[in-house]
């Protein structure tokens, strides 16, 4: 994963010794989380938006919904796509490494084009799609307006502005709060007879029935999936499990396990990254703890969102919360 900080052997040793004794460089215990700050409804031109910050990590998530055709192979489902973009300053091997800043010079042609940052973004996007939008959490059928004709295309754009550890966790929290902030406009599709008449008149191309959008802000329905799982990442440092790692700790972690947890503490998906292997007995304990931590996280988030007032997006309302 992202290892931006280059630690000297001595710093590494210090960090690892600390972890062995249950202390971390910032004074936390191994299970302690850093506080998150969540804001919703910050971008008025989107259907739903949120910003999640936790110390150095800063994630912006925007949801835009569009009316489109359902996919040909699944005519009664909508489409949800997750797209992650990293700020040039946080992309790995970016300017911080000094390796490829030629791409930052603003030249049209020329210059070496380094796509490693884009590769990493695509990886994060696919991972979030797998972990946080599994079929059990998101019923895509609810996003279909009229089978074979109209379905919602939901674009979830996540912009990583700053990375200082726990990127996936912050992104999943941002996605959950942005989708809760999202309202689908209420639409009424013209009757089928009307449409078929048009169809014959048109002859060649299959035309679509017209649809009306109710413009009133109160007319929309909330996004159908209200329980998007959140990710909880655990790193293995010297055979100890460390939660909510900073970027220094991430660079020391031999392996990382990301667990997606839903409101009821059930583990929805698991992903492991890193080179080292994990002891299966330890893994069971990690899954149990992840459920507990995830539920706690969701509870705090719900409480904070409730304060913001459901349904009505609050502009620039800031709140700090939680330290599980």
């Amino acid at each position, binding site marked *: 994963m992202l290892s931006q900080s280059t630690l000297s052997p001595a710093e590494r040793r210090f960090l690892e010794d600390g972890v062995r004794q249950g202390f971390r460089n910032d004074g936390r215990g191994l299970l302690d989380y850093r506080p998150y700050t969540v804001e919703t409804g910050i971008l008025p031109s989107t259907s739903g938006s949120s910003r999640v910050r936790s110390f150095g990590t800063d994630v912006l998530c925007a949801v835009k919904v569009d009316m489109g055709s359902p996919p040909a192979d699944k005519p009664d489902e909508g489409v949800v796509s997750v797209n992650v973009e990293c700020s040039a300053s946080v992309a790995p091997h970016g300017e911080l490494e*000094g390796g490829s800043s030629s*791409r930052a*010079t603003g*030249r*049209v042609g020329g210059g070496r084009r380094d796509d490693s940052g*884009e590769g990493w973004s695509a990886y994060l996007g696919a991972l979030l799609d797998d972990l946080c939008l599994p079929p059990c959490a998101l019923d895509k059928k609810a996003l279909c307006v009229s089978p074979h004709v109209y379905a919602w295309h939901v*674009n979830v*754009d996540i912009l990583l502005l700053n990375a200082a550890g726990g990127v996936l966790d912050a992104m999943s929290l941002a996605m959950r709060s942005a989708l809760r902030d999202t309202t689908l406009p209420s639409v009424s599709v013209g009757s089928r007879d009307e449409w078929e008449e048009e169809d014959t008149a048109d002859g060649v191309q299959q035309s679509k029935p017209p649809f009306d959008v109710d413009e009133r802000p109160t007319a929309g329905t909330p996004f159908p999936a209200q329980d998007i799982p959140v990710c909880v990442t655990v790193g293995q440092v010297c055979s100890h499990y460390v939660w909510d790692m900073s970027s220094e700790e991430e660079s020391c972690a031999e392996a990382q396990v990301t667990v997606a947890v839903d409101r009821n503490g059930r583990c929805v998906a698991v992903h492991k990254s890193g080179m080292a292997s994990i002891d299966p007995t330890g893994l069971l304990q990690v899954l149990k703890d992840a459920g507990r931590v995830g539920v706690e996280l969701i509870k705090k988030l719900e409480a904070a969102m409730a304060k913001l007032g459901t349904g009505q997006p609050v502009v620039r309302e800031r709140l700090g919360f939680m330290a599980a």
Partner: protein
Amino acid sequence: MSKTEFVSPEGFRIDGRRPSEIRTFRCQVGGVSQNADGSAYVEMGCTKALAYVYGPKEARRGAMKTQCGVLTCEVSLAPFSTADRRKRSRYDRQTVELALTIRQAFESSILLELYQRAQIDMFVHILETDGGHKAAAINACNLALIDAGINIRDSLVACSAGYIDGRPIVDMNQAEINAGGVELLLGVFARTRKVSVIEMDSKITPEVFQETYEACIAACRDLYTAMETAVNDTALRLVHSK
């Protein structure tokens, strides 16, 4: 359907402003990012821009110049920034052009001869655009450079102006730009009043140009007042926090 009235007979624009009035300008100098050396956030109406400055630091080998420093700029327009979502690559023509404009503008503003063998990187994110994102990007960069403590000759302030219904209007929003009239972008040094950036692509008479230009310069002055206050407030806060 009747033609949209961009300036009412009472002298108000569609969003309720006077022709020579800029949109609500809000900014935050510093504190936007923890790892950047300087950062700033600028809102001009609904247009929002974020700028990070990294450096000065050692230039990479290929770009090292012995007589002056190297400045780089990268702009990204968020896919959700425009009314209909569109994903742009990092090498999109529009963003590359904007990055080049910004880099050239600030090469005349920063005292690059003080940064021999060094490099300064600027990163701009346009989070939402409702017209005038170029001006917002330049203003954000200027504030981020100040926050980073980079030596500059003078503040570079940018604003756009147009000419609709026989009168100049400043700091246009997207609806006014879509009307398809004149759009002039000016980047002006606040103290010397020298022009660093000028962009316009319409055929107009010199008289119209002069009127638009003067309105734009006046708007830049208004913007500078707001930016100066923000910078001074931030500086005072820093002094008191010590």
